[in-house]
């Protein structure tokens, strides 16, 4: 058994199995082709299941994969075959909920791609080199959201987009409370 829980990868795929955002922490898939092959088999093995209310789980090729779907997005977290399944599920739930908070409930492919920066930062805050950094969705979302604006800049100097971003941030914060 590993001495601490290790995450092998985190994936978001769309409803056709195409990549939205992926992050690999293990050398098990050294090439892009190997990664794509893994994603393809994960996708085909899980696409017919209903993982919309509760996170689902499957095991293949010595990996445990927990997954959850929303709209046209498929979220996956992979661990080794001896990993504690419930820890993996906690990571998935943290990721899933944090994305939900940050995208204000409208979680779909379009929204995810438009806010890809947020998704990538989110992944960055959950796992560092395979080690779990945080699993609490509120904390993760808080860390990602707090960056949107430099709090020091006066409001008058903000452009319209920046102002919108600030508004979004406030909204997120109020959601988090």
């Amino acid at each position, binding site marked *: 058994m590993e001495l601490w829980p290790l995450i092998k990868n985190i994936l978001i795929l769309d409803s056709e199995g195409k990549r939205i955002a992926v992050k690999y922490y293990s050398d098990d898939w050294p090439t892009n082709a190997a990664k794509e092959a893994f994603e393809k088999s994960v996708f085909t093995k899980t696409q017919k299941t209903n993982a919309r209310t509760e996170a689902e789980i499957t095991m293949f090729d010595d990996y445990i994969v927990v997954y959850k779907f929303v709209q046209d997005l498929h979220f996956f977290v992979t661990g080794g075959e001896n990993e504690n399944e*419930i820890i993996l599920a906690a990571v998935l739930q943290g990721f899933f909920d944090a994305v939900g908070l940050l995208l204000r409930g409208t979680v779909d*492919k379009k929204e995810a791609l438009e806010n890809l920066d947020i998704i990538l930062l989110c992944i960055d805050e959950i796992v560092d080199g395979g080690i779990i950094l945080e699993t609490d969705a509120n904390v993760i979302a808080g860390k990602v959201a707090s*960056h949107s604006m430099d709090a020091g800049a006066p409001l008058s100097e903000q452009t319209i987009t920046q102002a919108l971003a600030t508004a979004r941030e406030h909204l997120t914060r109020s959601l988090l409370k």
Partner: protein
Amino acid sequence: MAQPLVKKDDDRDDEADYSPFLGIEKGAVLQEARVFNDPQLDPRRCSQVITKLLYLLNQGETFTKVEATEVFFAVTKLFQSKDIGLRRMVYVMIKELSPSADEVIIVTSSLMKDMTSKTDMYRANAIRVLCRITDGTLLTQIERYLKQAIVDKNPVVASAALVSGIHLLQTNPEIVKRWSNEVQEAVQSRAALVQFHALALLHQIRQNDRLAVNKLVSSLTKGSVRSPLAQCLLIRYTSQVIRESANTQAGDRPFYDFLEGCLRHKAEMVIFEAARAITELNGVTTRELTPAITVLQLFLSSSKPVLRFAAVRTLNKVAMTHPMAVTNCNIDMESLISDQNRSIATLAITTLLKTGNESSVDRLMKQITNFMSDIADEFKIVVVEAIRSLCLKFPLKHRSLMNFLSNILREEGGFDYKKAIVDSIVILIRDIPEAKETGLLHLCEFIEDCEFTYLSTQILHFLGIEGPKTSDPSKYIRYIYNRVHLENATVRAAAVSTLAKFGAMVDTLKPRIFVLLRRCLFDNDDEVRDRATLYLNTLGGDGAVVQTGEDVKEFLFGSLDIPLVNLENSLKNYEPSEESFDIYSVPREVKTQPLAEKKAPGKKPTGLGAPPAGPPSTVDAYEKLLSSIPEFANFGKLFKSSAPVELTEAETEYAVNVVKHIFDGHVVFQYNCTNTIPEQLLENVTVIVDASEAEEFAEVASKPLRSLPYDSPGQTFVAFEKPEGIPAVGKFSNMLRFIVKEVDPSTGEAEDDGVEDEYQLEELEVVAADYILKVGVSNFRNAWESMGADCERIDEYGLGPRESLAEAVNAVIDLLGMQPCEGTEVVPNNSRSHTCLLSGVYIGNVKVLVRLQFGLDGPKDVAMKLAVRSEDEAVSDAIHEIVASG
């Protein structure tokens, strides 16, 4: 020039597959990255460009070295901006680019500035980035900051430093080890995740110091860990400590109470981690197991698939070793057969197959039949394997189980699935004599319509071996000859060989086989024609019916008695010349330890590949080996070969184990020796055996090993004579004697002069169990009744205080060395009495059946009633003798 990242809403309403990155191109984005160099930075814009770059990398696009360097330098310019959002993207980008050492220097100062910034978010992220890209030299410069960060009051900063520490420990252990004090402080942190990361790092720092780990665990298990994740770590470390401190005392297991207490934790991940840890304890007792099974059983009916999966997977593993402990969960398991999640359903079924009893088999098979149609092949294979072991456990049920296998064999399926089924049928045919005829017919029907050449040829080969031995061999001929008509050349050739085997084994069929073989002479494939011609000639097909000679049989059926490796080497060395290749020139000495050792790890029976695989083939291999040594050739038939017994500790200079070969009037010890010193060559290796404590044995021959080079095992043998047919026992002390020669490691050449030396080995015992073969019977009751009570001997024994009933049962099974039947070696939980059925063959080929009835007499005392039936009174008495003196 560049498209804005976010389009207007109305633009995209009609586009179903809208993506902001539609038509994105690496070249264009790299162009866009020039905005990083603008004197007036637009953070929003820059963020968008970085996102596009990250998107490209994420999609599997790669940057050339030049491109990566260019992007990297451009990105470093962005440190000028004060925008936090942009800075975060810069951090992520730098990590993705993983810059080279000389590039790292460019950003070091910026990152170090961020590391000491007042903004927590900067500090935490700068630490992570810097530690990710840095090498050892830089680490000493920032060490001071990292140590501070570990105890920072902001948990995000502390965690960042600790996690970085875990990564750095792989590359720079000596530096990270100096942070021990700070890390220890962080373990006490109130922040859950800090505690988790600190504990992981602290354990990692101390992992090679068993005492320190022990201390860490015992102080923390007293209860200062709040974070569930940290608690999971602690459970893992605790079970590690338990593992390493195992077999110290027989009493209560240290730390078991802690694990059991974790079963009542409020976090599910901790409960599960603890339950799993308990089930994986070495030699876990039923009492220890019970609370863990209880919580796992609760998980089985959870609404969360993950919990159900975790629980059923763990219980499945427990069922392999403690099937009785899991039976309480059977009702919950059965409801899981219809689980939406097929992984859970499959695990539930295979668990049930392991724990079920004979009466529930039929009901279970009905449920499985419905279930099989809607799962994937990989799950089906798991089920087939489980059914196979079930059938071996309850041979009486072979009819329904064999029917099930043949039914699924007819359904659609891929190669691996079909192979698993065929393998299972073959194993069942081999191990359950009653199932042979039906099984063979099922296989015959299968090859009538089999799309896999490999399976067809393997089945034909197997038919050739088993078919002629059945009561009516002729009924298989039609199936086999049909193959000659309808199949591809490979299968046709295999069918011809099989026909020939029938012809050779069954004289009455011979004339008809010849007719068939002659027809094959007109086949359009060379190999098929060649084989037909060859067999016709060897079997004497041109003349009248002749008795098949022994050497012909040997030629057709004898497996190759030469190690394939040796044959391969000899063939490679053979140079084409006038002299033809002589197969007898191939050395027969087995270089490597034969099958016995390979068998142990290979849990999966090989099935078709080697039809008489399993124990018989080991004996075959030994028998061949021994009969090839002239000194032992006249000892008669080998009765039994024991499993190898180690005579040296692991990791000593010379590793020696011994296999005891029992013949009717002789015993041969085969010492398998391995020289583990590269600088030595051993010559003339013998074992000097002192048999003073084994009075009935007299040494008659020994065969020294000429040379034993480094790391290539060899054998030496010593043979003893003993009274014929009598299970003589005794103790033997062994001394390895040899001439040692120094070897020059650079050239590999040994010096000419050697020194004689000796090496003490451990003692070896010949025990009564060595004279009994483990041979199962499929229906114990029938066998018992048909044996009759003529030679029955019954007596009662007190076994004294025992740890548990199960332990007592196993001790007696080991003592007798007999085969437990019908799964009776497993003792149910908390039972006060148990009946165990054993069968075996005693030396002199006398069948023996044993019925053991155990009962608990008082709290720990075990009493046993031993009933023995055999074909010979003396043997029945001998069994009692073994128990009485054991």
